[in-house]
């Protein structure tokens, strides 16, 4: 009888990192499908291409770092990064732009920091921000026209365009996003005139409302599975809502709250990006501050910044603040009168 020497606890739950990541991937599906439905095959191609690149890059760097490749690949974290970045890219993004973004995300902002768990910044958002500042035209103006407004190129045409740059007249199938449109037209047009524009469709923002609702549904699934907690999404959405209600109460001057919430990357950001546990604040109070900070920053950058959307920058800025927040938002431990704050030694 060989008795195994292991200290307590001897019982383990069934939770695994891989299953956490798989759930995240699964939860993106509603929004993913909506994106493909409204904005064409380019979304799928982007994601697939990003996934291929991410796995290749991750495996290569792991080999260079002399780490067990399959052990780390099977945690699915590279896949999540690739999918989130791929979902954020415009549908007609040239292959090399995606490649630059994914390689930077995986190699520089994740593996060079020590791999999963050691990266201070959300890798997908680092990749996205790099592309946004490096290739602003490709990243902001070439968003696909919703399929209900124009005939989208088929799968092969899209594939050809992405990898060769030919086969599609890009100007015919792309237009500005609702956020971009409202921001730039609100000085010229009234609210009524703006809402008449086809890009806003019948409800809030054509196509986008469904995409966001899809991601919201996925996010709720994650909450239900306890993969994420409610703190970050709720505080982020609440602070964004509050800002757009208080500051932007006049839709003749500012983008209204409905468009803020149901357009752009709001729901993807709230449930899938801001909740990346590695780079977020970790205590419950810290998460509330962290989410609220992202919401406020999103509003500020969307309203007064140079870019139509702002989730990437807002998340990266709050990544900086996460360790600080953690130091000052420790929970009150059982039996202690109050929580210990800051990094100074307790009395």
């Amino acid at each position, binding site marked *: *009888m*060989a*008795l*195994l*020497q*292991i*200290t*307590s*606890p*001897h*019982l*383990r*739950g069934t*939770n*695994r*990192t891989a*299953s*956490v990541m798989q759930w995240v991937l699964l939860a993106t599906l509603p929004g993913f499908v909506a994106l493909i439905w409204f904005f064409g095959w380019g979304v799928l191609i982007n994601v697939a291409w990003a996934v291929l690149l991410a796995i290749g890059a991750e495996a290569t760097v792991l080999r260079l770092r002399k780490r067990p490749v399959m*052990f780390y690949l099977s*945690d699915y*974290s590279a896949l999540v990064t690739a999918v989130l970045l791929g979902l954020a890219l415009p549908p007609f993004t040239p292959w090399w732009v995606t490649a630059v973004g994914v390689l930077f995300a995986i190699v520089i902002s994740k593996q060079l920091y020590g*791999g*999963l*768990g*050691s990266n201070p910044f959300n890798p997908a958002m680092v990749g996205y921000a790099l592309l946004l500042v490096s290739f602003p035209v490709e990243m902001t103006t070439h968003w696909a026209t919703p399929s209900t407004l124009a005939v989208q190129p088929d799968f092969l045409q899209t594939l050809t365009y992405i990898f060769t740059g030919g086969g599609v007249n890009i100007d015919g199938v792309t237009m500005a996003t609702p956020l971009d449109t409202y921001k730039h037209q609100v000085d010229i047009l009234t609210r009524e005139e703006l809402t008449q524009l086809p890009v806003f469709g019948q409800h809030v923002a054509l196509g986008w409302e469904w995409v966001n609702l899809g991601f919201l549904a996925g996010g709720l699934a994650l909450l239900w599975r*306890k*993969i994420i*907690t409610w703190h970050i999404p709720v505080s982020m959405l609440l602070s964004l809502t509050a800002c757009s209600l208080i500051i932007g109460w006049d839709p003749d001057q500012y983008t209204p709250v409905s468009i803020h919430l149901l357009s752009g990357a709001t729901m993807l950001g709230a449930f899938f990006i801001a909740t990346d*546990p*590695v780079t*977020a604040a*970790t*205590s*419950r109070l810290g998460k509330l501050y962290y989410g609220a900070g992202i919401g406020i920053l999103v509003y500020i950058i969307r309203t007064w910044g140079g870019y139509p959307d702002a989730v990437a920058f807002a998340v990266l800025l709050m990544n900086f603040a996460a360790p600080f927040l*953690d130091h000052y938002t*420790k*929970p*009150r*431990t*059982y*039996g*202690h*009168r109050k929580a*210990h704050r800051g*990094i100074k*030694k*307790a009395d």
Partner: protein
Amino acid sequence: MRQTWDFHGGIHPPENKTQSTQQSIRKAGIPQYLYLPLSQHIGQPAAPVVAIGQQVKKGDMIAEAVGPVSVPVHAPTSGTVIAIEDHQVPHPSGLTDSCIVIETDGLDEWKECIPCENYEELEPAEILERVRQAGIAGLGGAGFPTAIKLHPPRNDKVNSLILNAAECEPYITADDMLMRERAHEVIGGLEIMAFILQPEECLIGIEDNKPEAVAALREAAKDTQIEIVVIPTKYPSGGEKQLIKILTGLEVPNGHIPADIGVMCQNVGTSAAVYRAIRHGEPLVSRITTVTGEAVEQPANFETLLGTPLSFLLNQAGFNAAKASRVLMGGPMMGFALTSTDIPVVKTTNCLLAATQKEFPEPPPEQPCIRCGMCAEACPAELLPQQLFWFAKAQEFEKAEMHNLFDCIECGACSYVCPSSIPLVQYYRYSKSQIRIARLDQEKSDKARERFEFRQTRLQREQEEKEAKRKARAEAAAKAQAARAAEAQAAEDPKKAAVAEAVKRAQAKRQQQAAPEVDLAELESNVQKAKDKLTKVEASLQQAEAEQSDMAEKLRNAVAKNRDRLAFAEQALADARKQSSDTSTTASSASLPAQDSEQLQRSIKRQEDKIATLQNAINDTRNSDPDRANQLQPTLDKSLARLAELKAALGATAPDTPEEQAGPDLEQLQSQVDKAKDKLAMMQGMLEEAQAEDPVDDAKVSKLTRAVEKNHERLAAAEKSLKNAKQQAQQIPGQAKSSPEELEALRNNIDKARDKLVMMQGMLEEAQAESPTDESKIAKLTRAVEKNQERLKAAETAYQNAGGESVDIVN
């Protein structure tokens, strides 16, 4: 319905309790040997009170409590004590500890127990003592002596007495089955404890997964004030702090015990044991242990004698060793894996879990922490386990402490939920032990520093005290030492002898003018001693030369030195004889002492010889055999005392110095001359010695040269004044007393100054010998000596002047 609270976190692992509740409690039976550890509780181990070979009955005390935090151990069945030896005991590290081994006789014969029908007739203190004597320690797991726990410190009032029946760990059902089958014992024990503590409320906290036990308790407690509170099943609700929070909403403050907030928790097993101890007078000799897991065929609860080997107990449940991959003592969340099944059941053994590989697979390899925070959501202490993990990994223990690492109860909920399979509790245990080690080291180094600082202050203080003592002693020593040691050492050290003699003469003179014979006798003895020593040293030298020892060279020097000394001593004796013959002509009556005094002098001489021999023996043995030297010291002291007596006797027999003619003056002056001569000789000796010994020490040589010159002058001065005095005495034999008071005073001044000078010189020499490196001290003393020399000179001048004047007046 009573209000209950919830605690933060917690988990819901599969319960796996039904396997072991299918059968009623079984008796495990009597194994051939029982191994009873002396330490089955927290606190001092019990001390055996039985001898090997002694027959014991069931319930006999075999080891008694030592100190207040301790409980006795009793024989679980009848049999023979066959050994008291180290045996493996239940411990995560497989440690061994002292055990009493009993070979059972199978009769299970009880000792006579004294039942108590009505415990309310007893004093609470008496009940506590009975609980203690019954060997009851918390059966829930910690093993804290129950009698101590039932007597809270500072007499805190216990408002809520809580019986912990949560039994929240998976697999364990010992308490559950106890409550189902012996609810009256549990309730009875709780009533006894309530009688002792007189709480405002008695609660039993029980999880809702034990409906049978709840029903049994309700039935047994229906006529009592006891409230049975059914709480939701959640691990670790059976943790003392968590249960208190659930039932009272209170939190036990950090660093305090529940009694501080008026709450006390007791385990149901403990309660039943208290009942049996008080009601039936039975000590704690058995307990109920769950034996479960997929590697046993009939999982069940067993009433097990303490000390039963686990292998015996496991076999009762159909243990399949081939299937087992881990055997745990305790539950799967907080129990520990055993290294062997050859260890005994103890008072805290609530469960044996023999698990198969499939049941508890080896943990998958640790993955990186993704800070998902599931651990923080599960932590019942509301810590941030993920942060603690980072700090432990980075060895940032200070930060870990700031994150309240020590509030971790090691329940394992964080490890259970961790998706990265990180053994978090191990990291916390590691951090805690590292911090404890660091604290111990810190304590050690603090103590070392304190010790060092204390030593420094002590040395300084001692130095100061030594200084003060030396000052104080110097006055006494100048007298006493002169009377004692100096004489004894005179032979080997003419310097010291001279100093001592000078002092002694000064004293003797102050009493009355000493007879010159004493000096003479002393000098004779000095000569004798010097001779003795020389002979001895020569003998040693011969021996050393014969052995061709390295010592020969040194001894040769010593012989030369001793020859010089002998020469000095003889010279001094010759001088003294001449003087004494001189003085005897002037003061003839002084040379007519009774025969007694001659006899005494002979005795003194003998005594002095003896002292010298002793002194030499001591000196010789001091280096080689300090013990022997110390033994000789009392003999020497005695001899010195005897010598002092003899001298006193001699002083008494010697006739009073006649106060006639110029007697005192002349004698005084004569003795001054003598002294000056002695001193000069001494100085010359020292000078020579210094030149020989330390030719490079120019400073010392030149100092001594100066001293010799000075002494020459003094001698000349003394002789001159003696001559003057003699002339005066001859010229005016009858009138020399015309101004004796004045002269007397002046002379006293001189004496005093001289004494002081001598003392100072003695101190200086001592300092030079003892601490040659302490330059400041030597310099100080040197200055003091010089000052005193000046004063002496002044006194002498004054005396001379006075003498001159008086002569002038007379003329």
